[in-house]
């Protein structure tokens, strides 16, 4: 073994000794890191799922539905189509007759579709579906046709989108702000935990300096101690998120929320990210916490 390797192995050995010696106080660090990561996990799941909803909504609602009067003339319809297309903001225009609409509805209702059989008269209108190039054009397109003859009602979902995006932004910013604050809090907690050890070993540190120990050699074991606490916290929260979320996801899929589950991030896709993110943040909090606590002691 070279000298460097022996020094490294000494540092690691001392670090693990420290973990064992401070296991009681370490519990506070582990708990705080676990709490931060669990909350981070929930925030991540929320953000990712909301993202799915936003993406899906964007795709699904980037159209304007123009409900037509039953007795619309083909001239009126052509006029509507022409005006709508004029601004070059559409991908396509589709006509859906009232019969097609009813048929579609029946399919959508599945087993309960027979309920619609009893209808004397089709209550659904003819519809002109204007597929937009971008959901933001909705308002312009609607304005260009809303005063034309033969239109019963125009429906579009720009509002919903806007609110959804705003809501997602709130969750994202709020969630990350909370996580950031909690990260700072746990760095503080872990640095105080380690400061207790450092203070208890002040004498030893002082002697080490006089014998010519480098700052790295003195700091190393404490950093390892912090990182180990951080990693333990990370492992606990990875397991908790894994089991907890799997359970929740399955329960949600099994029960009546099938529609809602579609938007949830699949646990498998999530776990890979969670493992990387949690490990990095756990170890980072631990290392930073101990560096903060050591800072004062290393001068001189």
């Amino acid at each position, binding site marked *: 073994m070279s000298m460097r390797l022996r020094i490294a192995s*000494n540092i690691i050995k001392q670090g693990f000794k420290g973990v064992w010696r401070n296991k009681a106080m370490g519990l506070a660090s582990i708990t705080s890191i676990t709490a931060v990561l669990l909350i981070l996990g929930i925030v991540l799941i929320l953000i990712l799922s909301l993202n799915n909803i936003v993406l899906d909504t964007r795709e699904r609602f980037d159209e304007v539905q123009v409900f037509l009067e039953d007795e619309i003339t083909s001239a009126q319809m052509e006029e509507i189509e022409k005006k709508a297309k004029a601004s070059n903001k559409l991908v396509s225009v589709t006509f859906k007759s009232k019969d097609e609409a009813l048929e579609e509805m029946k399919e959508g209702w599945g087993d309960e579709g027979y309920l619609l059989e009893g209808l004397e008269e089709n209550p659904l209108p003819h519809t002109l579906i204007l597929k937009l190039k971008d959901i933001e054009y909705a308002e312009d397109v609607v304005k260009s046709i809303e005063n034309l003859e033969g239109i019963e009602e125009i429906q579009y979902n720009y509002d919903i989108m806007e609110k959804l995006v705003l809501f997602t932004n709130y969750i994202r910013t709020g969630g990350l702000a909370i996580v950031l604050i909690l990260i700072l809090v746990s760095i503080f907690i872990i640095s105080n935990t380690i400061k207790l050890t450092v203070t208890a070993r002040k004498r030893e540190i002082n*002697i080490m*300096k006089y*014998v010519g*120990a480098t700052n790295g050699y003195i700091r190393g074991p404490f950093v390892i101690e912090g990182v180990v606490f951080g990693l333990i916290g990370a492992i606990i929260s990875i397991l908790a998120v894994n089991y907890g979320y799997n359970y929740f996801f399955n329960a949600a899929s099994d029960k009546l929320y099938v529609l809602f589950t579609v938007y949830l991030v699949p646990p498998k896709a999530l776990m890979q990210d969670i493992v990387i993110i949690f490990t990095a943040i756990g170890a980072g909090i631990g290392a930073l916490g101990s560096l903060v606590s050591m800072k004062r002691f290393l001068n001189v």
Partner: protein
Amino acid sequence: MIRFINVSKEYKNGVKALSNINLNIEKGEFVFLVGPSGAGKSTLIKLILKEENPTDGRIYLNNEDITYVKNRKIPYIRRNVGVVFQDFRLLPNKTVYENVAFAMEIIGAHPKEIRRNVPMVLSMVDLSKKAHNYPHELSGGEHQRVAIARAIVNSPPILIADEPTGNLDPDTAWEIMKVLRDINRRGTTILMATHAKDIVDAMKRRVVEIEKGTIIRDEEKGVYEHEITNS
């Protein structure tokens, strides 16, 4: 070995602990640093150990300018200088052997080398029998001998002692002085700050006297007090 050129030290609180110190200590010398309390002896030692930076002048150690060095380099400078203090500074939860081995571990010494050198220095300070005792089982003199063993185990060319006998009774103090003399005979340069008049007088070594931060006397085979101040 150690050279001070026009060195002054003023602490941040404004105390002028040393002014215009010129000192040259050659390899193999044994030098006593004497002077009243507050004269600046410990300050001079702290400058050599890079615990403090001088405010003026230049300091050389082994022909290397250490006046201003990066913090990162300080540990490597200290490895050339063994230190012994009045209060021993042993680790209470380590045995005598472990306390000495510790100094070798931190510089990454080979285990074989540790197993060879530690018993060697322990026998030099006559503590082989106590190798596996803990500090609380030792007398004051034995404490200081462990501290000396630790200071020399990495064979530094210089040994610095700040009042090493300050906490010991006269007989024990003499034991320590014999150990230091032996170490000096093997070629280690020694600088020792002390108030022990009889030791300084009996050893007949070079004496550097400081008062109020300046060197007022520097003589070969000197005594603790100058004749004039004696009368």
